[in-house]
C-alpha cells in the first residue's frame, strides 16, 4: 500500500475483516449510508449489505447489549461508538456483561466484540466530543484495551482486535485520522509496545494521539542535546510493562503522556509498575503529563489543556534535573 490516512487504513482493515469472516458485522449510529461521522465505515454497507453493516437505533446500551446477544449467537460484532463521550450509556453493558460473561460462563461463552471509539481532543469540538475514557476500561477486568497511533497499526490492530476472542475496546485518535503513513506488510503482536525512537537520556511513553506529540518533543529535545527514547504503548490493557522497564533500565528516567486527566489515568498505573520493577534504575521519579483534573474544556481552551510539545519538554527537563 502507498501511504494512506489512518481513516482509510481503518476502513481497509474493517473491509478485510468483513471479507475474512462472514460472522463479522459492523453496527452503530450512522455507520451505514453515511459511513460514520468520520467515514471510517465508508462504502462498507454498500459492499457487504445491510445485514452486515447497519445503523442501529440511537441508544448505546442497546448497541452493546444487542452485540452481546449477537456474540452469544456466534457473531463477531464491531460496534462503533460515535464519540468518546457517548460510550457511557453503554458502560453498564460493557462492564457488567461484555467484560464478565466469558468469566461468568467459566469460559463457555466467548465475547469477541470490538468496540471502536474515536477519542481524544484537539479538533475544536463541542462538549463530550474530545474525551479520553481509556482508564475506565483498563481498570475493568475482562476487557482488553488498545489504541493505534498510525495508519499501519490502525490497519493491523483493528483486524487483530476483531479476530481476538476477547472483547477489545479500540481507541482511535480522531485527531490523527487524516495523517498519512505507510502500512507495514506484517502486524506486530497486538499487545506489544513499540520503541518508535531509541534514545539514551530519558524515556517518554505515549499512546494514540500523543505519540506524534511525544516524537515531536523528542525531536525538539535533540536540539538541546537530549537523546529521548519514545515508546508507543499501543496496548493499554494488557500493558507491555517489560518493554518500558527495559527502556527505563537504560535511561533511568520516564515521562508518561496521555490526554486523559492525569489523576487515576493510565500514567498512574505505568508509574506504579515502573517504580516497582525498575526501582533501582530510576534516577528521577516517573513524571506524568496529561490533561488537568477538570472536565474537558471549551475548545478555545483545549490547546492549554492538552499536553503539548512544550509541556512534555518541561517534564523531560524536570526529570533530567534530578
Amino acid at each position: 500500500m502507498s501511504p494512506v490516512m489512518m481513516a482509510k487504513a481503518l476502513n481497509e482493515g474493517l473491509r478485510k475483516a468483513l471479507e475474512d469472516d462472514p460472522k463479522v458485522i459492523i453496527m452503530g449510529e450512522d455507520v451505514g449510508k453515511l459511513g460514520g461521522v468520520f467515514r471510517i465505515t465508508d462504502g462498507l454497507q454498500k459492499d457487504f449489505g445491510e445485514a452486515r453493516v447497519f445503523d442501529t437505533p440511537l441508544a448505546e446500551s442497546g448497541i452493546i447489549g444487542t452485540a452481546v446477544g449477537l456474540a452469544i449467537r456466534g457473531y463477531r460484532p464491531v460496534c462503533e461508538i460515535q464519540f468518546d463521550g457517548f460510550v457511557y450509556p453503554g458502560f453498564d453493558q460493557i462492564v457488567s456483561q461484555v467484560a464478565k460473561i466469558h468469566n461468568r460462563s467459566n469460559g463457555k461463552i466467548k465475547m469477541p466484540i470490538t468496540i471502536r471509539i474515536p477519542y481524544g481532543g484537539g479538533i475544536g469540538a463541542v462538549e463530550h466530543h474530545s474525551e479520553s475514557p481509556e482508564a475506565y476500561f483498563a481498570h475493568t477486568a475482562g476487557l482488553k484495551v488498545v489504541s493505534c497511533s498510525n495508519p499501519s497499526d490502525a490497519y493491523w490492530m483493528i483486524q487483530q482486535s476483531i479476530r481476538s476472542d476477547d472483547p477489545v475496546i479500540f481507541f482511535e485518535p480522531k485527531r490523527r485520522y487524516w495523517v498519512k503513513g505507510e502500512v507495514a506488510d506484517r502486524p506486530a503482536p497486538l499487545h506489544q509496545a513499540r520503541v518508535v525512537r531509541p534514545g539514551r537520556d530519558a524515556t517518554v511513553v505515549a499512546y494514540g494521539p500523543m505519540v506524534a506529540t511525544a516524537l515531536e518533543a523528542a525531536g525538539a529535545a535533540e536540539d538541546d542535546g537530549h537523546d529521548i527514547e519514545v515508546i508507543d504503548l499501543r496496548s493499554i490493557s494488557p500493558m507491555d510493562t517489560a518493554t518500558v522497564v527495559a527502556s527505563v533500565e537504560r535511561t533511568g528516567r520516564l515521562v508518561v503522556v496521555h490526554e486523559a486527566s492525569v489523576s487515576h489515568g493510565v500514567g498512574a498505573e505505568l508509574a506504579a509498575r515502573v517504580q516497582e520493577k525498575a526501582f533501582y534504575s530510576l534516577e528521577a521519579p516517573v513524571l506524568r503529563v496529561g490533561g488537568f483534573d477538570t472536565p474537558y474544556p471549551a475548545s478555545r481552551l483545549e490547546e492549554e489543556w492538552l499536553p503539548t510539545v512544550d509541556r512534555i519538554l518541561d517534564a523531560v527537563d524536570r526529570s533530567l534535573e534530578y
Partner: protein
Amino acid sequence: MSEALHAVPPEPDMVQLLTPEGVRVEHPDYPLDITDDEIKSLYRDLVLVRRIDTEAIALQRQGELGLWASCLGQEGAQVGAGRALRPHDMSFPTYREHGVAWCQDVDPLVLLGMFRGTNLGGWDPADNNFNLYTIVIGAQTLHAAGYAMGVVRDGAVGTGDPNRDTAVLAFFGDGASSQGDVNESFVWAAADNLPVVYFCQNNQWAISAPVTTQSRVPIYHRASGFGFPGIRIDGNDVLASLAVTRKALDNARNGQGPTLIEAFTYRMNPHTTSDDPTRYRLAAETETWKLKDPIERVRAYLTREVGVDAEFFASIERESEAMAEHVRSGCRALPDPEPLSVFEHVHAEMTDELREQRDAFATYLQSFEEVGA
C-alpha cells in the same frame, strides 16, 4: 374468590384457560387442544419445580447456599412458557426462572452453583438453549434482542421449516419494566421486527416496591406504544401461559415479530432468602393469592374433571422426594473451586500480566504450605 377479587382487581383483559377452582374455560383467541396426559405432565413439572425451589430454600437455611431466589407461586407462568419453547428456541432468564430451566432440561444442580458461590453460573447456554442467569435487571432483554438479530441473519425466521425457524423468549420482571435496557430492547425488537417474545412476570413486587411504583397502567400496555402486541395472562394458569406463549412464539418464528406477554402472578415468598417482606406487605395479601395457587387448580382439574387417581399423585410425590434427595446430596457434593481458578476464564487468551499475578499468588500460597509442612 371474592376476597381475591378485592386484592386483585378483576382483569377482563386477562387470558385465563383454567380458573383457580380448576374449571377449564375457553378463550376465543387461544384455543388449546391439550390431552389429559399432557396436563398431567404439566402437573408433574409444576410439582417438581416447586419441590426443587422448596429444597433450595431449605439448603439456604442450612447454610449450603448463600442465597436463593424463590419462584414459589410463579410455577404456572414459568412452566407454561417453558413448555411452549421448541428445541431451536433460545431463552434468556433473569435469576428466578427455575421453572423454565426445568422445562429446558437443566439439572437443578447446575443452577445451584451461583447461589452456593462455587461459580457465577458456569453453564453453557447452548447446552439447553437456556442463557446464564442475569442479575443486572433488564440487561438480558437486550441480549435476547441481539440473539434474535442473529437468528434473522441466519435466515432462521419465516422459512416455514419447523426445524429451522427460531424464536427467542426473554424474561423480566415488573420492576425491570422501568429499566432503560428493557425499553431499548423493545425499540430494537419493534424497529427490526425481531423474533422475540417478552415474558414479563408481574409478580406484583420488585423487592419492596409494588408494581404501582413502576407503572400506573398494566405493563402489557407498554408494547402498543412501541408498535407490537401486548397481552396479559393469568400468570397462575399454566394452560393460559402455555397457549399464549406458544402462539406468540409461533408468530415470532413466522416472521410476525415481537409480542409482550404480561403474566399476572405473585411472588409468594420473600424476594430472596435475605428479604423480610413483613416490612412492606400484609400476610393477608399473600393469603389471598394462595387461593389462586397454580398447582392446586391443576390438581383440582385432574381430580374432578379427569378423575386421575391417587396413585398418580402418589407417584409424583415419590418422584419429587427423589428429586429433593438429588438436590440435597448433589448440592452438598458441589466442589469448592481451587484458589488459583480465580485467574481462569478471565479472558479467552490469558494475558502475561495476569499469568504473572497468578504465579506470584501461587508462590505466595505455597509459602504457607511449606510453613504448614
